[in-house]
């Protein structure tokens, strides 16, 4: 199987909460991606079979949602919010700093596969701007110095 047995069993169970087979599709894609890093051809084929739809229909859904990706990403996806509240408090500088620090552009991945970078729309941290998410973790009230500390923490975490 493409995903772990545990995840597959979780999907089977959760699908019972809905009257139609495809209803849990969007979360299923996200949880599959969380486990595999991205939605590979094999992952798409697995999900299609799971919800009894054509692969084309699965791809059609994937292309709508901005968190879903069919391309591999770094282990830590650094998502800097660029929307108005963060912009007003310096997110342009934060974004530029991350790019410079990691040496990659928007949607790029470092050569060692450790980090990816993305400018994203509002992540719901407006009152604690500027903010970013690394994978699902929120980091708020950012400064360039704070960003360096955070990136270092992730780097050392992965070398453990």
């Amino acid at each position, binding site marked *: 199987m493409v995903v772990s047995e545990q995840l597959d069993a979780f999907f089977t169970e959760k699908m019972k*909460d*809905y*009257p*139609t087979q*495809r*209803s*849990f*599709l*969007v*979360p299923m*894609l*996200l949880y599959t991606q969380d486990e595999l890093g991205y939605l590979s051809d094999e992952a798409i084929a697995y999900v299609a079979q799971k*919800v009894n739809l054509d692969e084309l229909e699965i791809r*059609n*859904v994937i292309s*709508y*949602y*901005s*968190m*879903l990706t069919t391309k591999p990403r770094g282990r830590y996806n650094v998502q800097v919010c*660029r*929307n*108005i*509240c963060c*912009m*007003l*408090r310096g997110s342009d500088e934060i974004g530029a700093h991350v790019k410079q620090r990691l040496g990659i552009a928007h949607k790029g991945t470092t050569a060692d596969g450790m980090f990816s970078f993305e400018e994203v*729309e*509002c*992540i*719901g*941290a*407006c*009152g*604690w*701007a500027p903010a970013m*998410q690394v994978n*699902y973790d*929120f980091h*708020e009230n950012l400064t360039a110095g704070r960003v360096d500390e955070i990136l270092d923490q992730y780097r050392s975490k992965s070398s453990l």
Partner: protein
Amino acid sequence: MADLVSHPDEVRVVSKRFGQGAADLDRYLAFDGYKAVQKALSLGFDGIIKEVKESNLRGRGGAGFPTGMKWSFVPKESAKPKYVLCNGDESEPGTCKDRLILEHDPHSVIEGVVIGGLSIKAKVGYIYIRGEYRYLVDIMRKAIADAYARGFLGKNIFGSGVDFDVYWHTGAGAYEVGEESALMESLEGKRGVPRIRPPFPAVVGLWGGPTIINNVETLASVPHIILGGGQWFAELGTPKNGGTRLFCLSGHVNRPGVYELPLGYNLRKMIDEVAGGVWKGHKLKAVTPGGSSTPVLTADEVDVGMDFDQLMKAGSMLGSGGVVVLDDQTCMVKYAQRIMMFYQHESCGWCIPCREGTDWLKKTLNRFHAGGGVKKDIDNIQYLAENMLGRTFCPLGDAAAMPTISIVKKFRKEFEDHLEGRPCPYEKGVVEQLPVLA
């Protein structure tokens, strides 16, 4: 996670359990938890709707539609199952309040969903939380499981003979899904493209069944209304605007954060006192009063009570309660450009005025801000935006147009300044000059 703030003017209703560990079921029970749903069971569906109508509770997601009225539109009898859908797809820029409710008081949302369900005789509710809020999905999953373990959800809740199930669901990144019909599409496992209305969800909703869809804050208010009474809640606010609201104060203020204030609270006071004034000793230039989609107010227009009707009269909207404060150093063209960039990114592309309109507006505003503007662009921006208004399936087109129109009308001079001091006279040395079109 996100820091909590406080101010003496706050009236804590929805936020009263914040910081109290009430995500834990026993803590929640110690704070009157699950008493409202038991009272609601004894009130019956008509009794619930009567209280909610009396409370003058209006939708906290943005539109401000009276909640009791929305619930009363659901037909009493239906061949198809009825549903409650809690909209936790909070993504309107400037809005970060549902996040706190889901983090600190998830059981109040569950309780609101059950009470909403009882009012329309539904048996199932779904709580949809945006994909980025994974830690809140995990908190909600635990809260729901805990409630089932105590028999508060499932078969025969509180020995009433009534069955009620609540399920969690999550998105995967899409602002558009916050629109109610797109939300239903997403929950059904599809692209979040809006449905044409009528029929409205109250008649034909999830999987074709009658459905009520309410924002997290709306539903979290409901248990308090049931316990305190509709009249008590109504009196907290202004006429036809019951209760309090979680205002998200952000941008150029000294003490940003989420504050719960009565509806009708003065906006100037909110900025100067609650949020500690404009930062760095700067002066106020403008305010977005209700999330990025609402028309901006100038510094001269902020003596206004923050409720749905007073803001409407002032030419704007209360929206989602996201108050974004802009100081006098801000470039309004850049602000307009940034808003449009967002809506262009989020437009689902289903209908043409929004898909093409946001794209043209984004390109024009980008070029204009980067010193590539010509005089006729200013009227063109306004013309394009005005032609999107009311011509789209869902309100995303309006959401993109309204702030744009207000910025061009109220800050036209800043656009003209960009023609004189290219590229941007407000951000010297920051913006790269683009060629001027002939």
